């Protein structure tokens, strides 16, 4: 019986599937096993698959299985680890010793920048939950719609990959296992922007100028009023970090990419903890919560840092669909 004996270490497993039937077949079985063992389970995938899965389970999931729409809760991949963390913390406090999760962070509609962050997220999962014994997280990958390179990356970020009946431990693909628990992936370079529309060097006296620049450019990109207000708070937060911890000043660049506005703040500081932006602040108001807040206000946040190159934080906000034409002809 699984409950006896020492609890199994954290298990992070990629499951390759094809088509909705393939998903229901594999994931349905995984969730059913959890239900019959009385192991609380959280399923994070899109709304359509959640509905299909619930229909398949036919009420057996009551009280044991929770669901969250990944396209909402995990639209920004940096919000997914906090979601698992919340689930694990809450259920462990309630006495659960074994937990199951189904998380599908990558789907065919993800943009290139989102994909980069999704793989980064998958790698960070290994670090974030390394000590959480009894947690079994399965990440379904739809090989019917995803490109081969995406699936290859998934094999590298998961210690265990199941394809059909065959399971492959990470050793076969990744002899050193280095990528599985990232140490310095924060130093990976980001793509250079195509055409920067605004730049500003700032110090503590120019934060207000930076905020109005972001608001103006946000409006020109077609952001809604609420998105502008959120982006301004986010950019100000990162720029304040530059002023207080990143050498007293920084540089801001703004550009458009695929209907989104991107605001980049770079400074001379170094961010050491790769989980810094996804660690929930504890109850005390004095806890650092800048990057945490930024992640929940923006559609996508990319953090890069190295002791040689300083830090770069890119914040993405998606504008109105169909607004790309407003990019000025000037």
């Amino acid at each position, binding site marked *: 019986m699984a409950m006896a004996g020492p609890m199994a270490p954290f298990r992070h497993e990629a499951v390759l599937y094809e088509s909705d039937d393939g998903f229901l077949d594999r994931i349905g079985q995984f969730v059913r096993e959890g239900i019959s063992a009385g192991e609380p389970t959280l399923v994070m995938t899109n709304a359509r698959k959640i509905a299909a899965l619930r229909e398949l389970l036919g009420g057996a999931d009551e009280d044991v299985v929770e669901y969250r729409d990944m396209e909402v809760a995990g639209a920004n991949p940096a919000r997914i680890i906090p979601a698992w963390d919340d689930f694990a913390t809450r259920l462990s406090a309630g006495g659960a010793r074994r937990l199951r999760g189904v998380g599908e962070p990558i789907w065919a509609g993800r943009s290139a920048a989102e994909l980069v962050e999704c793989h980064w997220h998958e790698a960070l999962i290994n670090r974030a939950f390394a000590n959480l014994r009894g947690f079994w997280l399965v990440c379904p990958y739809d090989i019917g719609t995803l490109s081969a390179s995406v699936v290859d990356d998934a094999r590298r970020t998961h210690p265990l990959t199941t394809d059909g009946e065959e399971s492959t431990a990470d050793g076969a693909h990744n002899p050193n296992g280095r990528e599985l628990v990232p140490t310095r992936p924060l130093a990976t370079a980001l793509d250079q922007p195509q055409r920067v529309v605004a730049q500003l060097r700032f110090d*503590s*006296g120019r*934060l*207000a100028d930076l*905020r*109005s620049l972001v*608001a*103006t450019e*946000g*409006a*020109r990109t*077609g*952001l*809604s*009023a*609420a*998105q*502008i*207000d*959120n982006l*301004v*708070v986010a950019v*100000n*937060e990162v720029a*304040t970090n530059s*002023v*207080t911890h990143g050498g007293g000043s920084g540089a801001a660049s703004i550009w458009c990419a695929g209907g989104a506005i991107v605001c980049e703040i770079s400074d001379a500081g170094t961010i050491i903890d790769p989980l810094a932006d996804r660690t*929930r*602040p504890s*109850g*005390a*108001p*004095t806890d650092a*919560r*800048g990057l*945490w*807040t930024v992640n*929940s*206000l923006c559609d996508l946040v990319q953090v890069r840092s190295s002791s040689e190159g300083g830090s770069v934080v890119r914040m993405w906000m998606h504008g*109105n669909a169909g607004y790309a034409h*407003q990019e000025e002809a000037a």
Partner: protein
Amino acid sequence: MGDPLKVHGVYTRYHVWRSKLYRGTVRLLAAHRRSAADDAIGEDHIDQCRFQYAFDHAPVPCAAFQSLPFIAATSYGKPLGTHIAHAHLRAGESGRNQFYPRCVLGGNRERLRWVANVGPGTVEVARSLQAEFERVAARYRPRLIAAKATLLNAPPPRRGQSRDALAALIRDFLVEVDTFINRNTARISQTGFSPESLTAMATRGLLEWQGDRRLDLRSIDQEWIGQTPPSDELAGSEVLDACGLLITRMDIPPELRLTGQIDQANLGALAAALDDARPTGTPTMIDLSGLTFCSVGGMRILVEAAASGNIQLVGIPPHLASAFSAAEFPAAGVA
């Protein structure tokens, strides 16, 4: 009430056009709003606008700046030109028969409260829409004014021809206006208009203008621009101006009113003001409704002050609500 703003007088101290306009009788047209705001402000309102810059270039240092076309014309109906001016301008009287455009928002505090009331993001969306619409309208506005002036100055036998020319121009312009509105329905809705009502307003306004003897063309978004600025002068209060944040202190009942922006530059001043407020016996209300911006560090100071007791936070503005909840502070004393 239906008349446009007509100012007959000598411009004596209007910095924007001092060099551009003739001395002489002119009409100040178009940058006109009629609303409850105008009546509320009254004739004794003193213009305190500190922002002296050429509106045509509008680098927007004023928090409440909104561009609106401003047309000056001679009293004979000859247009002198269109300028981009602050939407909140109206005519002020500086002496006997002397007028100048002044800002109805008055001082910095009224400006900040107006922005906080509307929401800074909404102001930016409206600014952006106005700038884009101006690019469309700029092609038509001078032609419309010229056509109207021709009609007004034409001898009766030639009026029919001029009238037809003006009508045709208005029809073309309305098509452009309609296209613009349809292309931007989502953003227009955010500024508090329904696109349908805006189309109807533009059509009605232009058709009325076509038939009357006015030369000026009123803007189609005056209702929004005219939203009443919250004007509550506080008697016996003490105001501290700390790097973009106005801290107004009232003793009975104990209250701190925060207006403007909280960021790294004034965290110290804010913390000091909150410290001073704490020792009183009755709880101090901290009114946040005038905040145009608050950094997470500012939120932290406010929440900490509330958690340590005797301080109650009220009136978190809607545009800061999602940032407040995203920061996930423990709920304490936040109303």
